[in-house]
């Protein structure tokens, strides 16, 4: 008997860390106990995107969305919904601003403004079953390409669609493919960049975990277009589940004749291998990634000769990002006209003339709905942060949104109406990057945040070129001085000068874009930076050297919770009497502020 209900459980890393797999086992057991196993199928899916409220259980065809489902909720859920046919109210999604529980997924603001292309199968298929992917039109685009199209036609279609590289650079994909096709050489490679090193971005992890075949199909189409028979997927080792899912998908695709010799009986050969990264951010850079696949340290080289002409093992290599490949089958299937009707600008004359299609963003930090979203290019920051992500948690005011990870910058409130696309972000001093967005509330310090990114870059700089290696260290030292209240105006001037030099002189994209966090902090939040210099004050209360913790005696109830949690025992006071902090022993760890239920701990 065919099932009447599909219960889709998220097994993405976020939900799995909240024990979604135990919930799945409990559901299967309970369904069997009630004799419903013929009628109700339980499917483990990839990331649904709404990580903030996991574990997520989504029931189709009823379109009912459950949040934070625990093992103990399972019996009631099965009885109420699967047996009696009514949504189990206790676990329905409730909007953060209060209000009635919302049962239908499509009524939830987080989901209803999204347009899914790269994430089209998000939460609807079992990523370890190729049959599920095929059921949702998987590999149909490849079949069409292999039987009805010439490589040049495929390239023309992708070029006209206006697809640009989703990994950050925004290079037109069709243009890259055309160069790789033209490049001379018998052996060419198609490479997939799944290194996703940008802190704060996880869309590629989600696609590899949730819909690995969409990436393989995209690679296969690219291979046909450029004339390659061997591909590599380079995945960060920090994503063990993504590695496993891609490996399973490759096995299944080989078994079904969708990879390997004579694909679909159409006389085309292409195979793919996985290579694991080893924890180096710079390997997201194309030439460093290729060095790493060759088994060498991931050091970039100058690109006088493009990698499409001489890349991996000095052979023509076509490298695209995970999300880019995931878009490709949809473009071939639904046509370039459809894809280019979404997004901004005009690409009919110039492939750089606009940003077409959708973009997946991971949204995190100080917002109610953290997770993964896909929206048309040109959606404003305001719509993303306030409508889809549900704005900031109660009591927090918007200060900035950081886009593009260590290569991007901080964008202030005045830019909230900025339409998000490749070119507008660059004009504002930031970058698309791979699509990470981190929202900062009013209590986050811009100096501290810029220091965070420069610390990252200084650590991850491969050390090959001097501007990046030394420049990032100098920037870090200047920022440290500022955050300690020891900086002068000259230090800020030096910071700005070095930042421009690093941007202009570095060898690869890592160094060229590394100063963006510093430059945007100075461009949009100069007053706050200068308060550290002139007044020796951190307005946001984050820079440890410039703040002190104390207890507001009027608010303190003497509950002793802070004293119990203080790691240095520097809080004194009798039970039911106001407490006090012995400042010279305080290490400013913030534990007291976290545990206090009466908002009595003051940071100045």
């Amino acid at each position, binding site marked *: 008997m065919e099932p009447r209900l599909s219960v889709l459980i998220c097994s993405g890393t976020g939900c*799995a860390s909240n024990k979604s797999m135990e919930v799945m086992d409990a559901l299967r057991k309970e369904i069997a106990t009630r004799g419903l196993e013929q009628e109700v199928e339980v499917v483990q899916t990839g990331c649904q995107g709404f990580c903030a409220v996991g574990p997520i259980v989504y029931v189709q065809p009823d379109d009912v969305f459950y949040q934070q489902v625990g093992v103990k909720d399972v019996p009631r859920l099965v009885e109420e919904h699967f047996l009696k046919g009514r949504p189990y109210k206790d676990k329905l999604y409730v909007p953060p601003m209060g209000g009635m529980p919302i049962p239908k997924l499509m009524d939830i603001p987080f989901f209803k403004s999204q347009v899914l292309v790269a994430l089209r199968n998000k939460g609807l298929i079992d990523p370890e079953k190729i049959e599920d992917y095929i059921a949702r039109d998987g590999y149909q685009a490849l079949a069409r390409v292999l039987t009805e199209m010439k490589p040049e036609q495929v390239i023309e279609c992708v070029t006209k669609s206006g697809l640009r590289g989703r990994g950050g650079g925004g290079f037109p994909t069709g243009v890259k493919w055309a160069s790789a096709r033209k490049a001379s050489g018998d052996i060419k490679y198609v490479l997939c960049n799944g290194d996703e090193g940008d802190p704060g971005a996880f869309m590629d992890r989600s696609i590899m975990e949730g819909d690995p075949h969409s990436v393989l199909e995209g690679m296969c189409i690219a291979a046909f277009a450029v004339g390659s028979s061997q591909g590599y997927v380079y995945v960060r080792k920090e994503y063990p589940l993504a590695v496993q899912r891609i490996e399973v998908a490759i096995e299944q695709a080989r078994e079904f004749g969708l990879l390997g010799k004579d694909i679909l009986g159409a006389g085309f050969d292409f195979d793919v291998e996985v290579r694991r990264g080893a924890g180096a951010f710079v390997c997201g850079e194309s030439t460093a990634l290729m060095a790493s696949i060759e088994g060498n340290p991931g050091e970039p080289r100058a690109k006088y000769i493009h990698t499409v002409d001489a890349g991996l093992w000095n052979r023509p290599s076509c490298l695209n990002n995970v999300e880019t490949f995931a878009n490709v089958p949809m473009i071939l299937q639904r046509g370039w006209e459809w894809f280019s009707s979404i997004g901004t600008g005009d690409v009919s004359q110039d492939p750089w003339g606009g940003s077409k299609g959708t973009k997946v963003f991971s949204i995190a930090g100080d917002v109610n709905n953290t997770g993964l979203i896909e929206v048309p290019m040109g959606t404003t920051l305001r719509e993303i942060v306030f409508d889809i992500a549900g704005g900031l948690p109660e009591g927090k005011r918007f200060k900035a949104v950081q886009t593009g990870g260590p290569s991007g910058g901080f964008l202030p409130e005045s830019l909230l109406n900025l339409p998000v696309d490749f070119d507008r972000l660059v004009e504002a001093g930031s970058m698309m990057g791979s699509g990470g967005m981190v929202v900062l509330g009013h209590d986050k310090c811009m100096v501290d945040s810029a220091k965070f990114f420069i610390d990252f870059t200084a650590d991850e700089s491969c050390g090959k070129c001097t501007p990046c290696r030394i420049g990032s260290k100098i920037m870090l030292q200047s920022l440290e001085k500022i955050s300690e209240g020891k900086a002068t105006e000259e230090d800020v001037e030096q910071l700005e000068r070095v930042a421009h030099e690093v941007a202009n002189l570095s060898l690869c994209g890592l160094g060229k874009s590394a100063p963006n966090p510093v430059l945007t902090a100075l461009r949009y939040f100069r007053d706050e930076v200068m308060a550290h210099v002139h007044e020796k004050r951190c307005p946001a209360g984050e820079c440890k050297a410039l703040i002190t913790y104390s207890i507001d005696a009027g608010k303190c109830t003497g509950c002793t919770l802070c004293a119990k949690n203080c790691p240095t025992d520097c809080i004194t006071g009798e039970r039911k009497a106001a407490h006090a902090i012995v400042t010279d022993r305080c290490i400013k760890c913030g534990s007291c502020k976290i545990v206090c239920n009466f908002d009595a701990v003051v940071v100045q």
Partner: protein
Amino acid sequence: MQKILQIVEKWGGRKDCLIEMLHDVQTEYNHLPESALRVLSARLSVPLTQITHVATFYASFSLVPKGDTRLRVCMGTACYQKGGNRILEALERELKVKSGEVTPDGEFSLESARCIGCCGIAPALVVDDDDVFGKVNPTKMKKFVADIKKKKQAGKQSAAEA
């Protein structure tokens, strides 16, 4: 030695698979022993200096043993904004080691991780390679470490009984 040869075999003795082999060696021994690197060097005809260059370039590899249990606190942007550094500091106090070090009994190693891609549930930390904990609280690290110790003790006991 036998294990190393198996690993070389698994990757077809291909030089370009050096990094994959090093991953396997690291998993097997919890670090890259010098003897293993020498075997790889001889088998693959790659100079030891070159192998050491690779082994020290990448953050995933370590030339000294890591702890039995590896605690990695995510310091990606989202986790940092939500107090990842406080989690790391709390664990430093609890385990009495600095980030990057191993406890004297070899039981725990403490590290900061680059983004682990779990920004939706920040702040997060990873135990060993794949056990992710989200929305962790710095004031509960004492119990967190105690729970891991308890779990390991129970695991050892049941293994001994079996």
